[in-house]
């Protein structure tokens, strides 16, 4: 417990001081990007890790939020109203998304969500009168909460960090709540949960809505970060990215998606400056993770460290019996 607390403290302090120790504005922006994608990945993880539902269409929901904000701002609406419109539209979209896709689970769910994601991409790409097609929509300015302009990378970073911290906290509360516990129940034993009197569909629907909320938040952060949105944000690759982040980091953990987001964004933004074939590197990393740590980086590393610690502790006092069945992390 204390180790977790120390780790949390170190993480919090290093996140709070990013603009001080990170070399240059560019890298501060990369950190903002990592946090935005971490929120997105957390939203996807609520479904994958706790609900057992792999969605390949979340970029569509992300895109609804981004496009709604960009379109409202272009139409001359204020920032607060635009953000609210984005949230509401994305949540309405999520409700429809959930109602359609929750008819099935497993691979069927992957397929339906992928179809909805592609449909939304198709709309963004071709519905030129609203989305401006491939040219996308630009956003002229970032909001200035409490009179602080967010144009400087470090200012924007702190705003993102604040939203990120809130999102992580909300996810933590959600997962720990009775609803979160019953969601895990529907993942492991849907029929038994049904027999126990739980409304499996409704629990999954609530999880979808929460996931959609986090995704919409990430989408709104994203539109203010890049100040530009195009159909590229809604492609299948864009939907696959958070799923890859979650699974590579470790689904069903809070830390996993964050680590996964950091991994993917660092390879994309920083390693790509040194290695021309960074896509291949990313693919190779995913394949290696599946081979060596199929449960993901965070649970895999935890297991490894625990085993090493145990071996290290046990070495001097060989008399101690190995305790069978250590509790899973």
């Amino acid at each position, binding site marked *: 417990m204390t180790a977790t607390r120390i780790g949390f403290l170190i993480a919090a302090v290093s996140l709070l001081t990013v603009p001080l120790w990170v070399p240059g504005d560019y890298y501060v922006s990369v950190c903002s990007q990592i946090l935005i994608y971490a929120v997105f990945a957390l939203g996807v993880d609520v479904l994958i890790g706790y609900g057992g539902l792999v969605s390949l269409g979340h970029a569509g929901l992300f895109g609804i939020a981004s496009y709604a904000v960009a379109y409202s701002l272009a139409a001359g609406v204020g920032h607060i109203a635009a953000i609210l419109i984005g949230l509401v539209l994305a949540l309405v979209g999520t409700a429809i998304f959930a109602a359609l896709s929750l008819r*099935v689970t497993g691979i069927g769910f992957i*397929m339906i969500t992928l179809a909805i994601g592609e449909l939304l991409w198709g709309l963004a790409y071709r519905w030129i009168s609203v989305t401006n097609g491939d040219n996308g929509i630009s956003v002229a300015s970032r909001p200035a909460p409490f009179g602080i302009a967010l144009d400087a990378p470090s200012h924007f970073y702190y705003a993102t960090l604040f939203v990120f911290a809130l999102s992580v906290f909300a996810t933590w509360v959600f997962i720990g709540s009775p609803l979160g516990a019953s969601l895990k129940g529907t993942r492991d034993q849907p029929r038994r949960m049904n027999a126990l009197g739980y409304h499996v569909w409704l629990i999954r629907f609530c999880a979808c809505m929460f996931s959609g909320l986090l995704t919409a938040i990430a989408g709104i952060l994203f539109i203010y970060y890049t100040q530009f949105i195009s159909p590229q944000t809604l492609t299948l690759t864009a939907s696959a990215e958070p799923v890859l982040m979650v699974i590579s980091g470790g689904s069903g953990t809070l830390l996993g998606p964050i680590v996964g987001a950091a991994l993917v964004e660092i390879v994309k933004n920083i390693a790509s400056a040194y290695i021309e074939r960074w896509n291949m590197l990313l693919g190779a990393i995913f394949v290696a993770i599946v081979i060596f740590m*199929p449960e993901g980086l965070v649970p895999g590393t935890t297991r490894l460290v625990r085993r090493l610690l145990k071996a290290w502790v046990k070495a001097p006092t060989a008399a101690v019996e190995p305790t069978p069945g250590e509790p899973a992390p």
Partner: protein
Amino acid sequence: MNLWLLLAINSITFGGLLFLLSAGFSLIFGLMRIPNLTHGSMFMLGAYVGASVVGTFHLPFWIGALVAAAAVAIFGGVVERFLLRRLAGAEQAQVLVTLGISLIVADFCLMVWTGDPISVATPLGLVGGVHVVGLFFPTYRIAIILIACVIGALLWALLDCTRLGAMIRAGVDDPQMARVVGIRVSRLFTIVFCLGAAIAGFGGIMGAPILSVYPGLDNDMLPLALVVVILGGTGSLLGSLVGSFVIGFIYNYGQALFPELAYFVLFLPMLVVLVLRPQGLFGKQTP
């Protein structure tokens, strides 16, 4: 009037290509329950390998097509034998590894064949067209339709009339019982995966003279394969045949009639089918 006919021919041709792409996808999905997200990459890889054989080594088109099919089959076999086999039932790991491989393949193709689109010449003997009752039909497109039909018939014969086919059908219906009666389902997996990969690679080079070969071809084709398979039902050959032609028509007519909503029109029927009949038009109800 002539425009409609041309659109119809293009639709059927595209449907034939889609069938080559999705037949293997459907078999792999039906038998192994693996969402093979590398299938688009296999199509693209086949197209690139074939284009190289034809363009660089100046060999006849059909040799290029065979080499492409063989190369992609080997690639598929390696992926199945060394990666996917360890991941039976682990859906998340399968998604991760197939997407990872498709990233690698896409980047590998970009490295070897650069980003410029490669056009492949129509094979000699199939250039030009034929005139039937005053209408012009491009020969190559008709050849694609015929080849797709022949491959469909061969696959049907393989599945319905041979011992191997019976074993595959048993594996699709109930893998555990198939194992119990002494069928080596794991070997069937490799065979089906190689076969599906080979047809996809072959489809890639067959489509090359029409679609040309370019980076991003994989991401263009994969969603179409998914649409076809979802529409037709997984594991059903007839389903992917019907689905391919339906999507071929919707794709071509949609592009022509509703350019603004082309993709919406393309994915909408799939959504409707999924909602009303989640197992697809010709799929069996999964227990």
